[in-house]
């Protein structure tokens, strides 16, 4: 994609009928780190890879609770997601206040779809630069929607957005039947983390610092798990780094996992550096 005469604002069509500003907005999403959502019909799970600007900095929050029965995962410009999530929270509260019932997920997403579309047809504002995965449980069941700044909203059984999300999508397509027949939240979370792991680049692995897990469903309010709470699911994975990148190191990683698990359970306040140090030490010993 390169600069051209038709990409100054979102009120200009290109000669081939494209809206470049909207397409550029979609690019902004691809710059954000990955988020994956899957649903089994009775529960929806959202997992996301958090990023930090520098080693000692905090990680950007990727999952936001909208109401007891609904939440979103974002990829792209986080401030835009904040604006949209505040709007959704207002809508959800309004539904409870006026109708005494929780907001239907379908109504919520169609509402932000129309809101986002306005920004693509009027002068003066830019399209939202964030993609959202909206997960909710309402009287019609568990739903997962993908929201794009173009105003397009589609309902999915499994979706992934952000950097290298295509790998996650491939995992989801391959395991769709297994996912749809999950009966336990734990199984679903493990699938989600596996898909998320496939988006990792070389030398990256899922840790309790950079992974965020959330779920909602039948008899379960929308809950977000971060930091130590995430360890319980990381322990269930074969590996926290991307197998395709570390084809040679698979065995070592398998051996390290349980050890790290018990270690970190005890010293939960140790920063990531110490964990990696421990892993390096273990490597040397087994080698």
């Amino acid at each position, binding site marked *: 994609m390169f600069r051209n005469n038709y990409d100054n604002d979102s009120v200009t069509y290109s000669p081939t009928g494209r809206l470049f500003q909207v397409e550029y907005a979609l690019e902004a999403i691809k710059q954000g780190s990955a988020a994956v959502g899957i649903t089994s019909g009775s529960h929806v799970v959202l997992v996301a890879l958090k990023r930090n600007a520098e080693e000692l900095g905090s990680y950007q929050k990727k999952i936001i609770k909208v109401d007891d029965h609904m939440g979103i995962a974002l990829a792209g410009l986080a401030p835009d997601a904040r604006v949209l999530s505040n709007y959704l929270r207002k809508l959800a509260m309004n539904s409870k206040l006026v109708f*005494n019932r929780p907001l239907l997920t379908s109504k919520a997403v169609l509402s932000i779809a129309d809101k986002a579309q306005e920004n693509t047809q009027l002068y003066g504002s830019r399209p939202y630069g964030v993609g959202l995965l909206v997960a909710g449980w309402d009287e*019609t069941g568990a739903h997962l929607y993908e929201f794009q700044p173009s105003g397009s909203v589609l309902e999915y059984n499994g979706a992934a957005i952000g950097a290298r999300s295509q790998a996650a999508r491939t995992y989801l397509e391959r395991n769709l039947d297994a996912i749809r027949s999950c009966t336990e939240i734990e199984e679903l979370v493990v699938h989600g983390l596996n898909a998320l792991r496939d988006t990792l680049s070389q030398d990256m692995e899922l840790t309790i610092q950079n992974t965020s897990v959330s779920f909602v469903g039948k008899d379960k309010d929308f809950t977000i798990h971060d930091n130590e709470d995430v360890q319980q699911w990381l322990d269930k994975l074969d590996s926290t780094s991307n197998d395709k990148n570390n084809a040679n190191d698979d065995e070592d990683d398998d051996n390290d996992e349980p050890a790290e698990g018990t270690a970190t359970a005890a010293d939960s306040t140790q920063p990531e550096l110490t964990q990696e140090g421990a892993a390096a030490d273990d490597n040397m010993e087994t080698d």
Partner: protein
Amino acid sequence: MNHDPFYWGRPSDETYGHYNHAIANAKSQIPTSHTQQPIITGTSVLALKFKNGVAIAADNMGSYGSLLRFNNIERLIRVGTETIVGISGDISDLQYIERLLHQLQTEEEVYDSDGGHNLRAPHVHEYLSRVMYNRRLKMDPLWNAIIVAGFSDDRTPFLRYVDLLGVTYGSLALATGFGAHLAVPLLRKLVPYDADYEKVSEEQARVAIADSLRVLYYRDARSSDKYTFAVLTFENDKINVDYKQDLKVENQSWRFAENLIGYGSKQQ
């Protein structure tokens, strides 16, 4: 002569002095007020919960003060597939509420609906009570008393009242207007305590409401004997709406009138 266009057609400042703007901006002694009086009115709405359902009834009369102006007004409104809203009070406000409810239905159930969800009684009641209360806050009320009858999310009978002040309450037996004074005690005779509505059968409920309507026809001077009666039941996982119009009050006996003394034809 002042040729400035802004001074054309006005008394000259030299003769009368500059215009005192306090005149135009003066506050009125009388505050603006919308508080109204109802013009065409509907009388009581009666409703009763029983085992697995609710029964609700209202007559078809629109009174213009003491004149029986209209005798074909339908005061029970069906909303969705499982809720009935009975409205008493001003009839033009009733028609406005009917329109609001119709629009609500279209927006909730038709637009962008993938199915699987519908508008139920608790939602309709909450919506109407918000509308009524917010009108009251503007000192421009919809002059009505409304009863919403239907089922809750867990399929237990739902019966709740809301009126022009935004007051809401729920009970085993509810009635508006004259019915609150005459009919509610009769309906409550069936079951002394609210939680015992399960002991009331559909047949008992029907008879109780029909009797109350007869008593109201005897004693409420603004009532008529033609009415609409709706019974909602929940059976075998399905909701049944039995909506009967053009019913007449039966078994009337006006013999008690002969015994009234103290005014009119019998002074002693």
